């Protein structure tokens, strides 16, 4: 029996001990008419060999592509050691460290993680993770409303990832919180000029850096304006960017809360998850922070030891008055991220950021050289992701590139009608100059020859495997 060790003799002996006559007897408190018949949509059991083969076939069918898509999930090098460590049974099959003495490994690691995140974003304290970047932003919005105490209106720029905005809407809408959309200016950034009037009476302001379009916002001015208006500033950041660009704790007078998507720190793309959200804040806000938090303390012998702390914030103690309903978070991803950050160190993370940015700059330059292709925001500083306007329909371009083994970017039209002709492209440090030239070569062919042949004819005789 899969994963059930009992032999017939053991089953019989154990049943006898319980006084039940059969296994079904153990369910005799359930009204008989409710008992299920056989399942009809679960296939018969496979052996591990059979399911292994099926999964290898399906994974192979999904193939491997040269990916220039970012838009919230980024392909970075993940050292082999990261998942070799995170996959160790002692991390992989433990649970939330409720019994501190039997969980010092996970607890110390989480304390190290909190320290790393706090330093990365330049704030005082961090929690032990939330689900993902978007849900972390929702929690930050709720936290800002709690901290503010009087207003239930939060400003969210149009330049925030559209899917994040959807998630925040889903999560905060039931609590009568209003999300006030701050429009984008022509430079792909938030209109700071118009901000002051909106800030009045708001609880929080979300500030993305870089924003969804890769553009760098005037974060110093935005935080200063928020502070002046008594509004909590919530920095939404890419953790890799934080190694190179000024972190939320140092934007103007400093953000109150910083959140972001942890995926670039060691999580595989994996069709969207599992990733993890991170959150940090000023020390004085810690009791309104949601999620697990680990503290350093001592044991009965006076030696350093670690434990979950501030549990009075949490649902299992405070129930309907908790800071959040979150219980299980993304521990394993945090384990991977901690190992990942330790392996890369400050210099490694800086180099990754600089290389990713340089590669995207190169990609932009190569693609702009193609007739009709131009940067949407040519004068706006950006980080590792840019918007390009194309002279041919975006979906057609993407399909033609896909046939060459290239995922060419994120079509912006779905999210911003005014950018139906635009592609958001990203080249991380994983791309070589050859890869970028390869993309440029194919895009040029597609753009210049499109009137001659249907897209399928663009297929190269000898596609380069990524």
């Amino acid at each position, binding site marked *: *029996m*899969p*994963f*059930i060790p*009992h032999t017939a003799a*053991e089953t019989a002996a154990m*049943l006898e001990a*319980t006084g*039940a006559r059969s296994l079904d007897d*153990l*369910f005799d408190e*359930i009204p008989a008419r*409710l008992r*299920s018949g056989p*399942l009809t949509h*679960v296939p018969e059991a496979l052996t*591990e060999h059979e*399911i292994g083969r099926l999964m290898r*076939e*399906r994974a*192979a*069918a999904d*193939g491997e*592509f040269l990916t220039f898509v970012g838009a*919230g999930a980024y392909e970075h090098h993940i050292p082999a050691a990261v998942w070799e*460590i995170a996959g160790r*049974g002692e991390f*992989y*099959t433990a*649970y*939330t460290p*409720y019994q*501190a*003495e*039997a969980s*010092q490994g996970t607890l110390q*690691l989480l304390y190290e993680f909190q320290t790393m995140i706090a330093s990365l974003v330049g704030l005082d*304290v961090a929690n032990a993770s939330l689900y993902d970047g978007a*849900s972390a932003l929702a929690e930050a919005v709720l936290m800002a409303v709690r901290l503010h105490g009087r207003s239930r209106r939060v400003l969210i720029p149009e330049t925030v990832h559209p899917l994040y905005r959807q998630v925040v809407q889903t*999560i905060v809408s039931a609590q009568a919180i209003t999300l006030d959309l701050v429009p984008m200016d022509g430079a792909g950034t938030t209109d700071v000029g118009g901000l002051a009037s909106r800030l009045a009476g708001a609880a929080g302001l979300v500030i993305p850096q870089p924003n969804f379009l890769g553009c760098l916002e005037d974060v110093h001015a935005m935080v200063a304006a928020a502070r002046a208006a008594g509004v909590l500033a919530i920095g939404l950041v890419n953790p890799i960017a934080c190694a190179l660009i*000024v*972190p939320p704790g140092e934007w103007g007078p400093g953000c109150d809360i910083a959140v972001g998507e942890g995926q670039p720190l060691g999580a595989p793309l*994996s*069709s969207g*998850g*599992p990733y993890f959200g991170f959150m940090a804040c000023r020390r004085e806000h810690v009791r309104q922070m949601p999620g697990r*938090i680990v503290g350093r*303390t001592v044991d009965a012998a006076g*030696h350093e030891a670690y434990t979950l702390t501030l549990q009075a914030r949490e*649902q299992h103690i405070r129930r309907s008055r908790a800071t959040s*309903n979150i219980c*299980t978070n993304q*521990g*394993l991803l*945090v384990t991977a991220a901690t190992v990942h950050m330790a392996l890369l*160190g400050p*210099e490694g993370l800086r*180099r990754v950021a*600089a290389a990713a940015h*340089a590669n995207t700059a190169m990609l932009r330059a190569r693609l702009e050289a193609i007739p009709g292709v131009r940067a949407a925001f040519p004068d706006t500083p950006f980080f590792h992701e840019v918007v390009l306007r194309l002279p041919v329909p975006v979906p057609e371009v993407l399909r033609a590139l896909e046939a060459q083994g290239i995922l060419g970017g994120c079509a912006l039209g779905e999210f911003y009608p005014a950018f139906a002709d635009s592609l958001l492209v990203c080249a991380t440090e994983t791309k070589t100059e050859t890869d970028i030239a390869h993309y440029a070569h194919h895009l040029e062919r597609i753009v210049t020859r499109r009137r001659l042949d249907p897209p399928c004819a663009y297929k190269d005789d000898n596609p380069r495997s990524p």
Partner: protein
Amino acid sequence: DPRVLIFERGAPGRVNAPQMPRPLAPPADIPSTLLRRAPLALPQVSELQVVRHYTRLSQRNFAIDTHFYPLGSCTMKYNPRAAHVAAQLPGFANRHPLAPESTGQGVLACLFELQEMLKDVTGMRAVSLTPMAGAQGEFAGVAMIRAYHAARNDLARDEILIPKAAHGTNPATAAMCGYRVREIDVRADGDIDLVALNAAIGPRTAGLMLTNPSTLGVFDRHIEDIAQRVHAAGGLLYYDGANLNAILGQVKPGDMGFDVVHLNLHKTFATPHGGGGPGAGPVGVGERLLPFLPVPMVGESGGRYYWITEKTRPQSIGRLSTFAGNVGVLLRAYVYARLVGREGMARIAHYAALNANYLLERLSRLGFEPAYPGRRAAHEFLLTLKGLKERTGVTALDVAKRLLDKGYHAPTIYFPLMVPECLLIEPTETESRDEIDGFVAAMAEILAEAETTPELLKAAPHTLPVRRVDEVRAARALDLVWKAHPASA
């Protein structure tokens, strides 16, 4: 010594060259006011130091792979390695979430089939896999209840009923959805107090959240009656799937009358708990809540799989994660479900129940006191040490810590809050009789120690990497991030 923090190792300027691109000058195209100047206090250690540090830290954990882990309500069963290996296959692991459906037929096929299997075991009409943990599944469920009433313009319903024994996530979720929580008492036999329920139920009732079997380890025998009453009052029934392992393949929440259900795949479908996640909390719904399911879901048409999004689901409560939830966890659950198969689903509940009832019986005979004597254990059961504490001063906490010394992870303690000095014990079906008998022997020793040398228990644990941890001090003298000493800063 693994207790030295990773920040205290290493040396300024130490780098792992193979792990990083070659150095570049700071980008000239980014304004200097936007460049980072603050130091970045990450460790500067070698790859060997990192591997050694975290390998040794890992050894300071108890885990399913190292110890029996009967943590009640958490279903700490064996996590098949095959699932982990499959989910890490490059074709799955390297796929971008915004890659087109044409490049994801393999992963989408797995997700679609998982939806179908979960529909079957829950008795629901449709399932969305997107919630990233049980609590997010709960949120989705209650948000759908809210959306349902709103869609009917039935706006006076502002209360959710929740039994007192419920997980804290239930009331916290109801609050996050803007509901007032009314707690319902439980009777001495562990079932819901129907009188109290009747008194609470009414035109303000949006719904009832219920775990069945409950966190008391017993199956509520009046579930049909309860469902009928809630429905009659215009409310909906929410099934918290935390304990689904207890009834898998035996009875379906849909058949009990529930309108919406979440599952914890990291419990019932054996995906890893990972030191606290990632979980996955799919939600299933009956007819009435169909339009409101969170997106994305996976559809199938003519053998092709595709994402179902808000575009075709205008009444959806919306998205809960940036992309599609914890896909890697869902793949692991899929592998597990295929390995277990049709017949295996019902067997899981059979043997989870057998182990729990056997262990309950053996511990009872030792003199441990069941909180709900005379009831069948579901897949877990509740003991109360109230008597032991009165007699010897030994608390549930002391017993838990002493179990660690004996090589067993402690059960859940002090939950549910309403039962004094309680231990919630869930052996799961993947533990063998030998292991359970070993646990019984340890509990017998502890009982003897409690009578003869209670100070041994009060001071436990004695053999772990640390002695008993001072949690009060942790909360009072907050130390949440490491700061370099001035000399090493």
